[in-house]
């Protein structure tokens, strides 16, 4: 996956855009679904019992598919705000921790004055061999740790953005089917067929869409599993003896 690219704003606005499209799409779907029901009701008196049964079954199938999507949409509309902070914080680890800390590695390991090279004897040897390398390695490792957690969060953030944009695509596709079917403008003879066709088409879109969303969920679940290795990684005894910053100075 790698470190966050682009800006946090680009990513959070992708989430907000998708959420807005979902909100508008669902409203249009519900309106058109109700218009289709009204159209059926207005012709109900003229339909034979067998056709009524057929229409009811199609409508149930249609409603079932729409309900599956509505259930997901309801959760997404309730949860998207905390996920935007996931995006922001993945960038924050990179910009406000990893970059400044990595920038300290070179000044930590290099002498403030190159002529300190002329310093000789035991005290110099101790400083150059015992003090500087440990501090440098620890600083380097700290920068890498910040980078690791930034990448881990970013990967989860990207999966969440994928989830919400794919959901908005499913909602848009369902709306497209309903718009094309135009049940509200059909005459009596075509209504049962059109509703049956629509229910099947939407059912397939929803099944395919939900499966795709579940595969994205799987990636997020797996990222949680990988967090276990993140925990063992942070016990890095060679750079941080006893889990602490290397202490050249006692006390």
């Amino acid at each position: 996956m790698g470190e966050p690219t682009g800006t946090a704003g680009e990513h959070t606005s992708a989430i907000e855009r998708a959420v807005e499209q979902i909100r508008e799409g669902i409203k249009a779907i519900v309106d058109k679904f109700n218009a289709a029901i009204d159209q059926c009701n207005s012709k109900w008196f003229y339909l034979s019992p067998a056709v009524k049964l057929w229409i009811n079954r199609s409508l149930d199938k249609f409603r079932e598919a729409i309900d599956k999507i509505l259930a997901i949409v309801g959760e997404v509309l309730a949860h998207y705000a905390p996920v935007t902070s996931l995006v922001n914080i993945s960038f924050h680890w990179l910009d406000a921790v990893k970059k400044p800390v990595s920038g300290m590695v070179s000044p930590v390991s290099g002498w403030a004055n190159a002529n300190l090279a002329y310093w000789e004897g035991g005290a110099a040897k101790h400083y150059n061999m015992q003090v500087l390398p440990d501090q440098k390695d620890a600083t380097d490792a700290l920068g890498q740790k910040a980078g690791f957690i930034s990448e881990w969060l970013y990967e989860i953030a990207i999966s969440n953005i994928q989830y919400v944009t794919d959901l908005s695509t499913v909602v848009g596709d369902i709306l497209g089917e309903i718009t094309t079917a135009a049940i509200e403008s059909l005459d009596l003879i075509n209504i049962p067929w059109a509703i049956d066709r629509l229910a099947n088409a939407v059912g397939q879109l929803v099944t395919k869409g939900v499966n795709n969303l579940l595969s994205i969920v799987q990636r997020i679940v797996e990222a949680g599993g990988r967090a276990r290795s993140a925990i063992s990684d942070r016990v890095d005894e060679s750079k941080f003896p006893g889990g602490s910053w290397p202490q050249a100075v006692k006390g």
Partner: protein
Amino acid sequence: MPDQTSTRIITDHVREEAKKWSELAGQMQAVSSNPVNNNGLELNVTSFFIGPSELVATGIHYDAYVGYYDHIKKLVTEAASEWEQLHGALNRMADEFDATDQTAQADLEKVYTAPPSTSNGKIEGN
């Protein structure tokens, strides 16, 4: 060119090196103050998944994150403190070089032990 191996010049460079650690401690302290130790990187258990909460046990992500973040908080705090102590240690070294008029030897155990009054970063009068 002055004699770069002279006791006075090397002692000056050691003091310069001490100042380097003080500056680095300041930089690390800045990272510590914001965002590391002001909870500027805090996340919520609901931050990890946008969809139906029953699909992802985000407590696993959250616990792992909090543990990792706590560890980094500790390391950043310790680094800033250690570097401030190195500032003190190298100045004690330079003082000892001044007192003994040489730069090869010092009581390293003493130099690299923070005096009790400053070990926690506080400054106290003598």
